[in-house]
């Protein structure tokens, strides 16, 4: 397994958010993570990436079998865990300068600007990061950082929320390119808008109240969209 999350239990501000999460992501797979608002999807991604002020009560995160649970976020990123944040903070640094530094630490030799053009965000490069970016622009920029990082595991937190159709298509194309170059991809999505543009989805996981309640083939996506999460939650808890 590329990424294995084992029995992860975590809380934030005294509130238990992850209640024993198990999840596996295979090499060159694209998995979706779905679940109602507040289920803990963002928390899971952030805990895997090592960011945030979460208290970890138990469990492990393994990257290609190596336990990275104790590592600070930058070391996890250097080892190949990349995260596209749902809500990146404003950072007072020019986007171009940031990307230049990012390219250096990750040894990226491609043409960052052409990817920025493909995502329709090349006009943002001379601005400070996320200062006055629209929601969609921030998502696209986060995807651009993954291109430069070429991570072993790419975690994308709602890359298709608030993004126009053309944008979702461009993001999907880049996600597929990352996958074809060897990244494993975990995407948090609500309506599954991005799924329509991806040639293949391997597994869909559903998280409810801090647990993965079911993992299976892409037909789950259809069921979630038509029936909602409650049906799935019942099925899995009675199983």
């Amino acid at each position, binding site marked *: 397994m590329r990424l294995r999350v084992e029995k992860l239990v975590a809380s934030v501000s005294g509130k238990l958010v992850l209640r024993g999460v198990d999840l596996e992501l295979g090499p060159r797979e694209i998995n979706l993570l779905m679940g109602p608002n507040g289920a803990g999807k963002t928390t899971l991604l952030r805990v895997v990436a090592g960011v945030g002020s979460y208290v970890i009560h138990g469990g492990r995160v393994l990257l290609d079998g190596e336990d990275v649970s104790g590592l600070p*976020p930058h070391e996890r990123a250097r080892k190949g865990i990349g995260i596209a944040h749902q809500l990146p903070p404003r950072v007072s640094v020019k986007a171009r300068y*940031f990307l230049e530094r990012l390219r250096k630490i990750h040894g990226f030799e491609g043409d960052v600007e052409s990817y920025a053009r493909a995502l329709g965000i090349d006009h943002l490069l001379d601005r400070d990061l996320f200062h006055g970016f629209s929601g969609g622009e921030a998502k696209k920029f986060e995807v651009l950082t993954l291109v430069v990082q070429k991570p072993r595991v790419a975690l994308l937190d709602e890359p298709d929320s608030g993004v126009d159709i053309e944008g979702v298509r461009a993001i999907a194309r880049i996600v597929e390119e990352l996958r074809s170059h060897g990244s494993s991809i975990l995407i948090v999505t609500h309506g599954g808008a991005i799924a329509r543009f991806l040639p293949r989805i391997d597994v869909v996981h559903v998280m409810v109240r801090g647990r993965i309640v079911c993992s299976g083939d892409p037909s789950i996506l259809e069921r979630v969209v038509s029936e909602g999460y409650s049906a799935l939650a019942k099925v899995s808890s009675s199983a």
Partner: protein
Amino acid sequence: MLKELAWRALTKASPYGPDIDLGKVAASVIGESRTVASHISSAPREALSSAKELGLDLESSPATYLQVDRGDVYTAVSRRLAELGVMVMSIEEAAAKLPWVEKYLWRAILVDSDKYTAFTELFGRHGYFIYVPRGTRVREPISACLYIHRPGTAQLVHNIVVVEEGAELNLVTACWAMPTRALHIGVSEFYVGKGARLTFTMVHRWREGVDVRPRAAAIVEDGGEFVNYYVHLGSARSLQMFPTAILRGSNARAYLTSIVSARSSSTLDIGGRVIIEGVDSRGEVASRALVADSSRVWLRGELVAKNVGRGHIDCKALKLSSESLAEAIPSIRSLVKEAMLTHEAAIGTISRDEVEYLMSKGFSENEATSIIVRGFLEIGIENMPSRLRNYIDRTLDQVARAATL
């Protein structure tokens, strides 16, 4: 007349910055007469190599001025620039050789502005005279360095830079000190002719016991442009400066930018003033200060509109310690109806969210801090020659690295 005014101003304190007792300093400079003037190739190796550390290769510069302590001056002007009529020499030499130089002395700055200008008139030695004739555009940077080598030196210089109508000069100056105890006063008067352009980049690296009092003013004629780009790298015990750009002509421009890093127990009082006299002239005062340890920093900005024009002040401080003090004091004053003057000021610190975001992308905490600091220091200036831009970029990289060590 000048001397008399100076004598009378010898006890006149500056309104800003800690006061310095010049009485003790005077004793050290009276009666001293040593002077050397020669080609840059005979300059002390150690002065040339420390200039290199500040990014300036004086021997390969198309024109250069180096002054060591008070009396030793080394210069060079490439044949090409000499043929164009570009001059670089000591102000003492210029005043002796060229009678017309006198009309530029104390015209942009009053000799009795304060005790520091007065003291320089009475006890100063040298300073550079740089002249670019009408219509001559010199894009490649010319360098001037003022270096203090001997402990206790009072380096008091009077610089004059004249950029005639339609000419251009990109002047890069570096000032630094080896000893831990010294005084530097630099009086600089800039004359920017019609449609002329002067970028004046000044990099300072001092030591803990050095007091620094630059006194600078520019007079800018119609359509002229004056860019003052100041970077303070090292600690000084105290630094106070408040350069003034007088936009005498119409459609003139001035950008006064200061980027300072304050560490240990430094007191820095910096900023700039733009006086809009000509119609449709524009000025900007921008300051960035990194405020660390127990340093204290005042960022001043002043715009005075005596005619229709525009101006903006932008002062920002990034506090890196809680013992330090930062204060921003922007001031705007309009004497006419149609001027548009604005200001913004901010004092903040590095937010945890920013650092964490960068860490999630693979930067260590130190790298993240230095990226944020570097981003904070960036002030875009248009139309800088690329070699100068690169030089400034490298210098700011140094500031950012040093601030996060």
